[in-house]
């Protein structure tokens, strides 16, 4: 009986051996020795075998024992893909190498304009999709350990041992991956050590499975013909496999082969030579065939020989054990161990690259913005972030393994992972073959596909009541019947797996196509799209005379587009003459290229010029037509956008003007309303008195003569007030409309003041003492003297009316400065309050409206008149009373009329 300790010791020895192999390969790689083994297509083919994980190693037999020939699909899909390598794989590898792609996420993000959003989405999806798969590997190793220990202890499984086993395996794998996956400081380099170790493990698992197969056929069943008889006799061959399930599974495994991050890692990233694919195209299917050769015999014999209830997933292990062949069992265990470890190592490596490149580093660089950046510093951070990512991903797998508690058949978990990563396929293939595919389309397809996958496959896999409630299963999400996770859109009766794959991929493709068609790609996307789709057009051929001639031609066409036909021809012909070349095309010498680049840079900017020349001369993937399209488009777009800009500027100017006009109109309209209201009030008030008293006089009998006289004089006074108001209004209207004709006369200021004072004193009952300095008033004026007198009268009358002093007094002071005359009217009253000074020249503004008979038009009229006369009337502050200053030119200028 092999003790568990021996088993663990063998395991450790095996791992130590792998370390050794990896280390040796790594050293050879560092020294740059092109070891034939390292560069061999055989190693490449064997490394592809990480496709066969513990799920395939153990689970294929289990699958066959449960569902008959269905397991074949898992081998069929990848075989079809690799046999048809010319079509997809060659393209993938070429792009991966030319674009220095590091992962699936990188590939998809590069294709769609280097979108980091897309990279993050793919990374997150990959981590979610692959975590159960990693857990599955840990589980299979743990279970196989516990099968050994149960055989040792007499059939009792020790769950603690199994969990502890899972933990230590996780730790060991993490260590290995960190050591060999992140040895190189340059993160883009390939991992020779890991690849060699994986290839060795591939051999171990094939040998182990073949050995068990041979033992079962010749050791247990008793020869080939006996085995065949037993197979015929078993029920296994008669199980009908559902056609749709077959097709779906084949599609799924083919898709997974392309999309699984670890497959991408070994197939594209670790590829040394494109020609290796050619060998792999026959060698890998052969490997898969050998792996599947003994699956049916082992399943059939296992079902027959082993006690009912044995887990068919571990027949490969339990058959030799039950026959007492511990050595063979040990080999078989090592085979399963190899399958599991190689998968976890490569998957973790691939995922950690994605997580570190697309999630951790952008965040780190974002946070570091503004800080001191040293390049060496960042390289260490890359390595550190990868190591942490590796630990994190393995920890995640372990947590999932712990949490799921080893539930479910191995195949079911594997299929969920397959379907999850299959969601990358539309964006990936679409990007390789369809130039119309856009970033928005890819994002939409991925998001839709992944959501549907989560809803129809991942979440239901935890069972009703775990994440989705039983009600959701029965009646649909939120009670919407067509949102049942296993009967989407009311289509029930499909196999749940087929159902999930069908809907998630169909809706994914639909979303991808529709959103690609309706969205417009960015220039970078367009460029990358062209590079991806036309990857074979411009690369790979040796350059001869013909090629360089073509280059000059291409350069010429491009230069014509940018510099204009004449300019470009002059440049090229001049250069050709200088080189002594016949015709108009020069050799594309470095000097000439530099010159051309400088010329182009003047038109399109240095970066673009450099890129354009680089694209043509560097012979990389873009065709001239593509470049021309980009150039044309950007020129058109530039023009269009400048037009738009001008238009929008014009529009916003017009809008602003409209707004201003509107505001002005609104204000004018408001002013007009207020004005009408005021006029109405001013007219109606005297009219009210007139009407009321005339009615009284008419209707009242027995009025005394005194009363009659009193009321008649009220009517008279109010009628005069009304007339004066109308006069003022007309005056103001004429002044404001500029229809006034000024009547120019000559006269002295003194005379004019005499006249004005006499008029004012005659019209107003209240007296005011007026002090003048006659000497100063000997100023001759040549202006509209009547209008000026009107202003004076108004100012004097105001003083008479409103000066609150018990001994009212008005000083009139005149002065002349050059051609300008100043006449101040200063009284000894209370003055005008600050807030009223601004508005008192407005129409209808009255100050302390009490006992005023005026309509508040006087000062407004004064100001209008003075403006007409080329001067002004203003209020003087800080004189101790109310003070106005009239300013006017001595001679009325004609222009002012």
């Amino acid at each position: 009986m092999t003790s568990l300790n021996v088993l663990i010791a063998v395991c450790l020895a095996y791992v130590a051996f792998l370390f050794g192999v990896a280390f040796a390969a790594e050293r050879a790689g560092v020294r740059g020795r092109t070891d034939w083994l390292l560069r061999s297509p055989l190693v490449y083919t064997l490394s592809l075998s990480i496709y066969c994980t513990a799920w395939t190693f153990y689970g294929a037999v289990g699958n066959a024992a449960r569902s008959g020939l269905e397991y074949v699909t898992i081998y069929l899909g990848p075989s079809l893909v690799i046999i048809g390598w010319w079509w997809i794989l060659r393209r993938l590898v070429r792009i991966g190498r030319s674009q220095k792609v590091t992962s699936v996420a990188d590939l998809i993000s590069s294709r769609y304009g280097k979108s980091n959003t897309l990279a993050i989405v793919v990374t997150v999806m990959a981590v979610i999709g692959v975590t159960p798969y990693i857990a599955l590997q840990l589980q299979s190793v743990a279970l196989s350990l516990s099968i050994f220990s149960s055989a040792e202890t007499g059939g009792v499984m020790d769950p603690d041992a199994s969990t502890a086993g899972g933990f230590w395996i996780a730790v060991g794998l993490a260590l290995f991956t960190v050591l060999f996956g992140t040895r190189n400081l340059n993160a883009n380099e390939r991992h020779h050590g890991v690849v060699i170790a994986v290839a060795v493990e591939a051999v171990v698992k094939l040998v182990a499975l073949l050995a068990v197969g041979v033992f079962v056929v010749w050791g247990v069943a008793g020869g080939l013909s006996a085995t065949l008889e037993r197979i015929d006799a078993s029920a296994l061959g008669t199980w009908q496999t559902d056609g749709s399930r077959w097709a779906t599974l084949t599609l799924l495994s083919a898709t997974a082969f392309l999309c699984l991050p670890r497959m991408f890692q070994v197939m594209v990233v670790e590829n040394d030579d494109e020609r290796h694919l050619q060998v792999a195209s026959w060698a890998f299917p052969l490997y898969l065939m050998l792996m599947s050769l003994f699956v049916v015999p082992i399943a059939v014999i296992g079902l027959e020989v082993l006690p009912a209830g044995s887990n068919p997933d571990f027949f490969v292990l339990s058959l030799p054990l039950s026959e007492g062949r511990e050595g063979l069992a040990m080999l078989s265990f090592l085979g399963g161990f190899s399958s599991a470890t190689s998968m976890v190592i490569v998957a973790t490596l691939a995922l950690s690259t994605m997580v570190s490149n697309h999630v951790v580093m952008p965040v780190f660089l974002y946070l570091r913005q503004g800080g001191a950046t040293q390049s060496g510093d960042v390289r260490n951070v890359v390595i550190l972030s990868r190591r942490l990512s590796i630990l994190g991903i393995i920890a995640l797998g372990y947590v999932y393994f712990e949490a799921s508690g080893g539930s479910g058949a191995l195949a079911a978990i594997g299929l969920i992972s397959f379907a999850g990563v299959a969601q990358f396929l539309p964006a990936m293939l679409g990007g390789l073959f369809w130039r119309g595919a856009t970033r928005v389309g890819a994002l939409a397809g991925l998001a839709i596909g992944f959501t549907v996958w989560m809803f129809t496959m991942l979440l239901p896999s935890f069972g009703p009541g775990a994440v989705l409630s039983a009600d959701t299963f029965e009646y649909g999400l939120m009670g919407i019947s067509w949102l049942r996770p296993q009967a989407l859109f009311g289509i029930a009766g499909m196999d749940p797996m087929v159902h999930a794959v069908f809907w998630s991929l169909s809706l994914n493709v639909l979303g991808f196509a529709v959103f690609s068609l309706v969205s417009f790609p960015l220039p970078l996307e367009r460029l990358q799209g062209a590079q991806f789709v036309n990857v074979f057009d411009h690369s790979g051929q040796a350059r001869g005379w013909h090629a360089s001639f073509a280059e000059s031609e291409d350069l010429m066409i491009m230069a014509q587009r940018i510099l204009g036909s004449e300019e470009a021809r002059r440049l090229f012909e001049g250069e050709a003459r200088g080189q002594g070349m016949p015709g108009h095309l020069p050799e594309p010498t470095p000097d000439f290229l530099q010159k051309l680049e400088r010329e182009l840079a003047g038109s399109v900017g240095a970066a673009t010029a450099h890129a354009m020349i680089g694209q043509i001369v560097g012979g990389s993937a873009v065709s001239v037509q593509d470049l021309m399209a980009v150039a044309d488009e950007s020129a058109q777009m530039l023009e269009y956008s400048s037009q738009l800009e001008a238009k929008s500027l014009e529009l916003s100017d017009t809008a602003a003007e409209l707004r201003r006009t509107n505001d002005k109109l609104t204000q004018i309209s408001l002013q007009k309303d207020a004005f009408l209201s005021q006029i109405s009030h001013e007219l109606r008030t005297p009219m009210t008195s007139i009407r009321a008293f005339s009615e009284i006089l008419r209707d009242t009998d027995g009025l005394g003569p005194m009363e009659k006289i009193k009321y008649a004089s009220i009517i008279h006074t109010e009628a005069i007030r009304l007339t004066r108001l109308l006069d003022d209004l007309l005056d103001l209207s004429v002044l404001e409309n500029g229809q006034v004709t000024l009547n120019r006369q000559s006269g002295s200021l003194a005379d004019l003041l005499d006249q004005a004072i006499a008029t004012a004193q005659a019209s107003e009952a209240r007296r005011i003492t007026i002090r003048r300095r006659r000497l100063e008033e000997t100023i001759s004026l040549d202006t509209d003297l009547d209008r000026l007198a009107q202003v004076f009268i108004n100012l004097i009358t105001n003083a008479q009316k409103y000066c609150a002093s018990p001994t009212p007094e008005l000083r009139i002071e005149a002065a002349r400065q050059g051609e300008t005359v100043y006449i101040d009217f200063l009284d000894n009253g209370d003055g005008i309050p600050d807030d009223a000074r601004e508005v008192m020249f407005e129409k209808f503004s009255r100050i302390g409206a009490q006992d005023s008979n005026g309509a508040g038009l006087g000062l407004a009229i004064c100001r209008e008149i003075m403006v007409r006369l080329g001067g002004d009337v203003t209020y003087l502050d800080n004189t101790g009373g109310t003070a106005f200053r009239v300013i006017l030119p001595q001679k009325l200028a004609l222009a002012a009329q």
Partner: protein
Amino acid sequence: MSHHVLLVEDETNIIEAIRFLLSREGWQVDTHSNGTDAAEVIRNMKPDIVILDVMLPGKSGFDILEELRAHEQTADLPVLMLTARGQSRDREMAEKAGVSRFMTKPFSNTEVLNAVRDMLYVHRQQS
């Protein structure tokens, strides 16, 4: 029994006319010509009816009316509003503020007398 009317108006001649008209009909007429404290004066005087001008120094007739309506004591006091502004919007504003009667200046003496009588009658009926 003598009825009491308070006239809030700032035009001397209009005050004179209304005082003459209403006194002859046996009303006791008091006047007040400032808007600022008008509402307070009305509350103190407790007139049967108020005749209220709109354009008053200090505070507009509309504001005074709102103030009256907001106060419990004067909430349903009959108020005749007189305005010289004569825009239809003024009538709407007065009605919104809760005026009892609204008339535009210049008014007919008979109409004012009738309005005052009606208001008093209606008010008596209600209370």
